[in-house]
């Protein structure tokens, strides 16, 4: 039992922190957010020079071969800096998904591209009307000779516009809701028939609903055996959930720090409002929430690759419940304690608030995971 970060993990954190402090101040985030693309290729190159997208790529594909604890160590800084670039969805989840198929040539090749920062690959899995049900895949892939033909619609695909490759789940047999029959395909974003309806998300990132209309991909773009990809997809999403938790904890820490600073400076009734006990207790409650959330972000990182799937799902659902509830409380109270200023676009606090709001909604909210946890217990 030990909760210390290793020297290597601490260094990784420090390197990312320093880079983001220098290269990604709040103003930079704001200007990038307002560009058409909503992300910055030069920032991505800078992160690639530090090795960020290579962290969890296997050494054989030019990566660093690290795991969830190293991801945990740096992820909080991405949250605190409001990083818009696709670390979570490409460097963590996309990479995790491809890693499961690293013995296939197209996946290995793409992993090398991800490690160097030249390529971006994100999952296109969840579908409209299915919320967070990972088995609900209605998009189809029909085998036609040496090709597959994909038809369907993927909902809120984060960073779809920035991606070179979409990692698309599609049904090669069965019905939506079946665990069997889901296959995974590498689909170039620019392939004919791929249509993006792109939009900004609440936290300033970019996403798209992606439509596939008779999209043809070569059969070798199917990763793994036909109809057997769901387990790998869920495993990658679990790794992503743990990283999302760490990102959110970074945001919560930043919001608490900013709120403490604000109530010490803001004067009303002739004194700093931080002298008022009602605000002190609110802030104490925020800290209590934060520390429980931090504990669960550690648990999520320690358990997200656990071979016992029941233990893994229990830990991740428990983590998402605690982190979702903490994100809601800390986010709302940080805005409240900043008063009218908390409502403005000018202050960072409203931007953190929106990133935490997004974190609550992604991969199932607290209620979804509370139910899932309760059901796992009975199983």
């Amino acid at each position, binding site marked *: *039992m*030990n*909760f*210390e*970060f*290793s020297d290597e*993990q601490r260094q990784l954190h420090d390197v990312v922190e320093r880079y983001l402090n220098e290269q990604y101040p709040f103003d930079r985030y704001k200007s990038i957010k307002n560009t058409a693309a909503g992300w910055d290729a030069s920032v991505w190159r800078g992160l690639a020079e530090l090795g960020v997208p290579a962290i969890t790529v296997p050494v054989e594909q030019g990566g660093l071969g690290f795991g969830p*604890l190293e991801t945990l160590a740096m992820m909080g800084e991405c949250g605190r800096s409001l990083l818009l670039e696709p670390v979570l969805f490409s460097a963590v989840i996309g990479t995790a998904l491809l890693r499961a198929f690293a013995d296939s040539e197209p996946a290995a090749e793409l992993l090398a591209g991800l490690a160097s920062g030249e390529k971006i690959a994100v999952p296109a899995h969840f579908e409209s009307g299915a919320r967070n049900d990972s088995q609900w895949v209605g998009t189809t892939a029909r085998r036609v000779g040496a090709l597959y033909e994909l038809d369907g619609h993927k909902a809120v695909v984060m960073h779809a516009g920035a991606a070179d490759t979409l990692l698309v789940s599609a049904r090669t047999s069965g019905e939506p809701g079946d665990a069997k029959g889901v296959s995974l395909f590498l689909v170039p974003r620019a392939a004919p028939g791929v249509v993006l309806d792109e939009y900004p998300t609440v936290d300033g990132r970019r996403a798209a609903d992606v439509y596939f209309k008779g999209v043809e991909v070569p059969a070798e773009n199917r990763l793994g055996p036909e109809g057997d990809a769901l387990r790998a997809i869920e495993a990658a999403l679990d790794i992503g959930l743990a990283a999302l938790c760490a990102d959110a904890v970074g945001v919560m820490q930043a919001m608490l720090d900013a709120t*403490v600073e604000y*109530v*010490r400076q803001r004067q009303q009734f002739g004194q700093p409002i*931080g*002298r008022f*006990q009602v*605000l*002190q*207790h609110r*802030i*104490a*409650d925020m*800290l*209590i929430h934060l*520390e*429980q*959330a*931090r*504990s*669960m972000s*550690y*648990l999520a*990182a*320690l*358990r997200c690759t656990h071979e016992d799937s029941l233990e893994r799902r229990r830990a991740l659902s*428990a983590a998402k*419940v*605690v982190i979702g509830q903490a994100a809601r409380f800390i986010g709302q109270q940080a805005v409240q304690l900043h008063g009218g200023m908390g409502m403005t676009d000018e202050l960072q606090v409203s931007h953190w608030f929106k990133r935490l709001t997004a974190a609550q909604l992604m991969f199932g909210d607290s209620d979804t995971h*509370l*139910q899932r*946890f*309760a059901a796992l*217990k*009975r199983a």
Partner: protein
Amino acid sequence: MRLEFTDEEQAFREEVRSFLRDQLSPEISAKVLAGYELGREDHLEWQRRLHRRGWGAMGWPVEFGGPGWNSVQQYIFEEESALAGGPRLIPFGTKMVAPVIMAFGNVAQQQRFLPKISAGEEWWCQGYSEPGAGSDLASLKTRAVREGDHYVVNGQKTWNTLGQFADWIFCLVRTDSQAKQQSGITFLLIDMKTPGITVRPIMLMDGGHEVNEIWFENVRVPVENRIGEENRGWTYAKFLLGHERTNIAGIGIAKRELARLKHIAASERQNGRPLIEDPLFAAQIAQIEIDLWALEITNLRVLSAERKSPAAGPEASILKVRGTEIHQAISETLMRAVGPYALPFRREAMEAGWQFDPTRESPGPRYASTLAASYFNQRKLSIFGGTNEIQKNIIAKMIGL
């Protein structure tokens, strides 16, 4: 970073388990697991058994007769003991006054008092709170006036836990009423048999006699029973309150009670189905289980950090607030689990002990008889040991407000 305990820690856990299997009597554990009260002899007998094993003073340094356990080992012991139905350790001797005697007492006091605490030969209680001095403890008024080789003590202490069993009481008394509040307090050890001491029970809403008022009327205390210097007692008192607070979350007891909640919710039926399958009730249990898991990891994080240096921030306050909230949530949910059979309130059924005496039974399932009383009793948790509001004041101060 890893969750699993080390091989040595696992081996230690096995050692504790085997001790509990050998030494914890079925009578005692049955009482503890069913939520019945333990008597003085139950507690002292347990203390004596721990002592015989060399574990009577588990937090003490080796030179004072402790087993040399670190805080992780103490945590493991308390967890295993709680799960097995071991009596909760009465803290006033081993965890409160003993560290003060070790740090600030003289050699004669150490030799006189420490061995009997460890051996379970003397029971200690606490004389801190007064009717007018609760959270604002330093405003205490019990006076001690020096007369030759004695202090003469007059005043009243309250919320004294299990003082009816005690041989000794450690007291904060005012020796200088002119000085600043905190500077006029002295720390005295007082023999409960001294003439002039009256112990009066305070009956609580659960019907139990757990706390007392203690009146001091011209009680003569030898000067040799003063800890450290006159008027320095507040320093010692704060040391005591800050000591060994990283196990205060009571994770082991909460785990045991959560398991009991699940067991009862599986036995109770609602609409013809086990209550535990009711979606709303199941979600409430799941929420408690998740909150407890998060607190357990927070507690382990504190222990892990303590291997390098003692916790000096708001950690203990966080553990206290969150721990008590979870214990209270469990006791409330346990009561609600039995529905109308939480209503019968027969004191003798709560004291029935492990021997199933049908004439002392309550109606309804046997496990129901203590649940309402336990819910009432557990409301104390957020009040004692520094109210949860005081803990939040401490947290706010620690983070710079």
